[in-house]
């Protein structure tokens, strides 16, 4: 049903650390790999060897450049973007069939691929671009928070995490219950000042982002000044070598 649950027992979600993400795309590829055989299977791409390869991916890694406030320096921030499993998601309430729903037990937003009619209205309602249309299947696809991993008793307990979290080589992705203020992820959000994307839109995203830390070095610090010549034989030899190597 597309009516939202009043509250959810848990608020499972991700905490993404923009400070340590290196933009390696491991989370995106492991997401695609898992989900093309799991709940969202198949997750096929179109024109894979042609000029216009495209298809549904449930996790996309953007790159942004952020300039210092004084305009003297800039840094690149890698920015993974997937479903934020909002507390009040408009994508669910606009769904005419009830294929989109939010689970009362853990807050995961899912699409039932057997009842989705592929009208795409949910993708219009989502401000985060979390839902993508699967042309071959004729239904919408989105992040399932690896619902088929996190409760999977065939896995060792430490593997019962979303594929993207397991794949991240820098530990920039954390999974847990954001509804429990004592959980490791909630503590992390508190300690690092985790924030919501587009908070003013009021969809109350569960996933949180941790801001990049302040830079510790300045652009000039790493550059060594050239030593002044002292006129010694060795110094004249180096100057000769420099002239010959420079070709003048």
């Amino acid at each position: 049903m597309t009516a939202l649950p009043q509250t959810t027992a848990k608020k499972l979600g991700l905490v993404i650390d923009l400070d340590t993400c290196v933009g390696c795309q491991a989370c995106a590829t492991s997401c695609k790999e898992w989900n093309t055989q799991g709940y969202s299977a198949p997750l096929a791409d179109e024109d894979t060897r042609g000029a216009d390869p495209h298809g549904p991916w449930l996790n996309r890694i953007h790159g942004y450049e952020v300039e210092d406030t004084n305009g003297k320096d800039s840094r690149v921030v890698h920015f993974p973007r997937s479903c934020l499993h909002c507390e009040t998601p408009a994508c669910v309430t606009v769904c005419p069939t009830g294929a989109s729903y939010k689970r009362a037990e853990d807050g995961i937003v899912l699409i039932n691929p057997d009842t989705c009619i592929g009208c795409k209205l949910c993708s219009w309602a989502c401000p985060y671009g979390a839902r993508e249309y699967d042309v071959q299947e004729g239904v919408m696809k989105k992040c399932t928070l690896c619902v088929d991993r996190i409760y999977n008793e065939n896995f060792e307990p430490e593997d019962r995490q979303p594929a993207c979290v397991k794949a991240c080589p820098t530990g920039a992705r954390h999974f847990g219950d954001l509804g429990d203020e004592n959980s490791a992820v909630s503590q992390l959000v508190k300690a690092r000042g985790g924030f919501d994307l587009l908070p003013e839109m009021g969809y109350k995203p569960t996933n949180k982002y941790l801001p990049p830390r302040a830079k510790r070095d300045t652009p000039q610090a790493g550059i060594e000044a050239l030593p002044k010549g002292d006129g010694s034989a060795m110094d004249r030899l180096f100057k000769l070598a420099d002239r010959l190597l420079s070709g003048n």
Partner: protein
Amino acid sequence: MNPAYSVILFTTASGAGYGLLALLGLTSTSVGQSPSLGFAIVAMVIALGLITIGLLSSTMHLGHPERAWRALSQWKTSWLSREGVAAIVSYPFALAFGVTWAGLYTAPDAVAPLGFITAALSLVTVFTTGKIYATLKTIRAWHQPLTVPVYLFFALASGSSLHLALSALFGRDPGAIAPVALIALVTLAFLKFLYWRAIDAAPREHTMANATGLGANVRQWEVPHTTKNFVQREMGFVVARRHASRLRGLFFIVLLCAGLLELAASLIPMLSLAGFVLMFIAAWVERWLFFAQGEHVVTLFYGNAQA
């Protein structure tokens, strides 16, 4: 937003169909059974035909048309579901009205109530269509108080224009429909003018800074994929402002010509046929612009500074 032709066809065709149906129903409440069987049958077939073509066009546009019946289930939360329910519910009333109004089944007492119910359900259906767009907070140009009134007056203006054209074909006096058509057209032009003024003035309050949380000095460095993905194809369609202002001008000129033809039709009735053609062209231009100018918040993640 990507202006999909199936959705433009659906909203313009069903709008004209429901507008015509509403006017036929409303006039029957005072006039009663149609004096001309031929006019009644043709008018009903055209009204229901336009509605059906529109509904089929939008159904065929689905990924799974065979599951479309499921869309009737979530009327408690979804305006798209409500639109489906309103459309389905209006069919039997419209058919019963058409049969009694045309005189195929003689029930003079039933004509007026059935006509009134049909008119009400027709307008409710158009209202729900407008609401689907007006309730999307992600698209500033749609999330406007004038979106729904524009949809309603488009239905009335194109429906009455169609009514005039059919009356001319059957050599009938359109009666009160002639002034109604002009009033609807002028109101529509005024509402659309106010709507465009409103979306131009509406603050673009969502920013790339709020979308990424990375502050005011953020800009796109690289996109996550080499070719356009679904989100960019569907939501990233942005028409150049210069292009838009020309199309707005074209809309008003075509609408003005349609209005002049409707006025002149009181002397030469057949001109109302050309009037309807121009009205429908104006509807297509307006609907295409409605989609093309719908700037989606998700574009903030793809380099758009404000939405």
